[in-house]
């Protein structure tokens, strides 16, 4: 199946869910879409540029607080989300410039430390954030608006990743992932590209954080900067397939569904069961479901960088009929 068709199908599915699903299905989808957007964002820097890290929740939490504070002073929730997205970008630019000098586990753990610093700020700057009391917002009457906004962000992130996968920028990022020194030597301006990818990966989390606060009509530091949000997102991307177009979507949907199923049926065991599933995936599908499926020759999923492969094949004079 071709990628654009799959994306259209996903968008269509998102459009019809509110027509048939009840409030719970909608609430479930809100949570799912939050994770889809977070997973695609993390995939940009972690999957394509190879800079895996544990600090995305920094931008999610920042967005939640920026959005919540704006909404408290009367700004419309959509506008607040846009401002929160901008705040993510503006903070990520200098932060990326500093932090991306680190590599491997140092960057990963360094970003975790950064998230904790922001968490402490949310607690410590209690004149602005009310500290542990949290910020209370007026709830919206229904979930449709938030759902629509999140659906748009998720689809945009999916399309952006698809475009990236077939673009020069995407290939440059992959070159950085495979061998940063070699990429530098080939004339790729690695520092600038890494920062761009990092900043791009902070925009959606900012907006999503603000929408999350709107959805809950309440935010406190432990919800905004939760470690579980971070780790769940990463597990989703790795499970689905790091650095692939559909991996984050597959991972997010699968894990959300499995989670929801397990914790309503086996509340006392589900944490361990989720652990077992992740462990099994790590051992038997270490490159993620998307790669596993593609390698097994199942045609339902598009091959990564299909367009580029076709160009390469055409150059060799062998154009297959697709």
């Amino acid at each position, binding site marked *: *199946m071709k990628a654009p068709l799959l994306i259209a199908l996903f968008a269509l599915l998102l459009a019809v869910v509110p027509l048939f*699903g*009840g*409030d*719970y*299905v*909608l*609430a*479930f989808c*809100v*949570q799912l879409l939050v994770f889809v957007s977070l997973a695609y964002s993390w995939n940009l820097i972690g999957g394509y540029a190879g800079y895996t890290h544990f600090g995305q929740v920094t931008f999610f939490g920042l967005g939640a607080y920026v959005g919540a504070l704006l909404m408290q002073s009367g700004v419309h929730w959509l506008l607040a989300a846009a401002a929160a997205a901008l705040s993510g970008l503006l903070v990520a630019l200098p932060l990326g410039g500093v932090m991306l000098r680190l590599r491997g586990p140092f960057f990963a753990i360094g970003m975790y430390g950064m998230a904790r610093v922001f*968490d*402490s700020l949310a*607690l410590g700057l*209690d004149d602005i954030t*009310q*500290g*542990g*009391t*949290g910020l*209370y917002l007026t*709830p919206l*009457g*229904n979930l449709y608006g938030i759902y629509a906004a999140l659906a748009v962000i998720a689809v945009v992130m999916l399309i952006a990743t698809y475009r990236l996968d077939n673009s020069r920028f995407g290939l440059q990022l992959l070159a950085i992932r495979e061998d940063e020194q070699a990429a530098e030597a080939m004339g790729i301006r690695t520092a600038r590209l890494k920062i761009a990818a990092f900043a791009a990966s902070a925009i959606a989390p900012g907006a999503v954080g603000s929408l*999350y606060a709107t*959805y*809950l*009509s*309440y935010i*406190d*530091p*432990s*919800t905004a900067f*939760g470690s*579980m949000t971070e780790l769940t997102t990463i597990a989703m991307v790795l499970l689905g397939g790091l650095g692939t177009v559909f991996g984050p979507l597959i991972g997010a949907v699968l894990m959300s*569904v499995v989670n*929801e*199923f397990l*914790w*309503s049926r086996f*509340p*006392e065991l*589900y*944490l361990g069961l989720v652990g077992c599933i992740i462990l099994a995936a790590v051992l038997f599908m270490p490159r993620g479901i998307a790669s596993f499926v593609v390698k097994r020759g199942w*045609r*339902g999923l598009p091959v990564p960088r299909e367009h580029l492969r076709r160009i390469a094949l055409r150059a060799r004079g062998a154009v297959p009929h697709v």
Partner: protein
Amino acid sequence: MFQSLPRTLAALGLLTAVLFGAPTARAADPIKIGIALSMTGNLADSAGHYRKAIELWRDMINQKGGLLGRPVELVLYDERSDPATAARLYERLITVDKVDLLIAPWGSASTATSSAVAEKHKRLLINAGGASEKVQERGFRYTVQTAAPISAYVEGIAPLMAKYKYDSMVMVSRDFNAARDMSAALEKIAKEKNIKILNSEYFPAGSTDFSSNIAKGRQLGPDVWVSLAYPNEAIELVRQFRATNYLPKVFISNGVSQEDFLKAAGKDGEYAIGMSLYEPVMKTKGNAEFAKAFVAKYGYEPGYFAGFGYAGATVLAEVVTKTGSLDQDKLRAELDTYETDTVLGHHKIEPKTGLQVGVKGLLIQVRNGKREIIWPTEFKTIDEVLPLPAWEQRS
């Protein structure tokens, strides 16, 4: 490629049915009460006591023939100490499981998010486990508090200090919403009673070391040390007091009033004073029966976390019985003026906000490994020993 599409859609449909499908109705047709509370995450411990009490209540009421002649069934979910999960699970309880009645989760943060969901669906939510006043002050009509209000936690402190002519205190509390409300209430009392607050600090959840707070306490020398905290922090505080040979004249914490504290702090916990809202020895309505059944079933004495759960369920059952209905608006209207007595003491709400005003606070002191009530006088089981005896004078 389109051949596989119908199959994929069918599979998706099946999956959706399995996940979101309502369980089929049973012949007995029980009354379903929905609750999502932490079974994992940082509130799992305290929520566990709350859950046990509610489960016990279910067993007890079913033994007596149920509610409105129907058996009571609990629909319990784990919200993982996550306010977002709590909100989603209340959507599920209301729209998928179609429960008849709702009891709120444990803790103010999850109560904040789930009360918004209940309000949206115009469903009564018994706030049995959230102390924070902010939740009630949002003006949600359908959220009614049976848990003790903030003022009840701190009201015993000033009388105790006046009795011993103590006039200074420090507050070292975990940073969460109920603690901030309690500090504010205490600051107000201190101002009225001319009590000096020498220092007021919050530590983040997860703190395990109190060296700097103790050094500061030693330097400032307050009469009273108040910590609005959970049992683990109260345990670590008294142990670190002992290990560094520090002792204020009085140590007061709500974390003291739980079984965990008695067991884990051991002798170091002796004479510590706990803010409490419920004790098994209280001669309140139905308490003897509840405490006895609780000990028989779980093997330890219930503390106020458990008392909250039982009292919330009791009030709910009483208004259901009185109105003879499960109609949410009727129940809510009845609750406006409904007054009763529960294991916590008197139940009464302020009609406009649903804020609890009936339940009063207690102070307890740990003596020989047991909680004994020292205030107010009508419930008193022992005379307090103050100031705290120095470490070296204890056997």
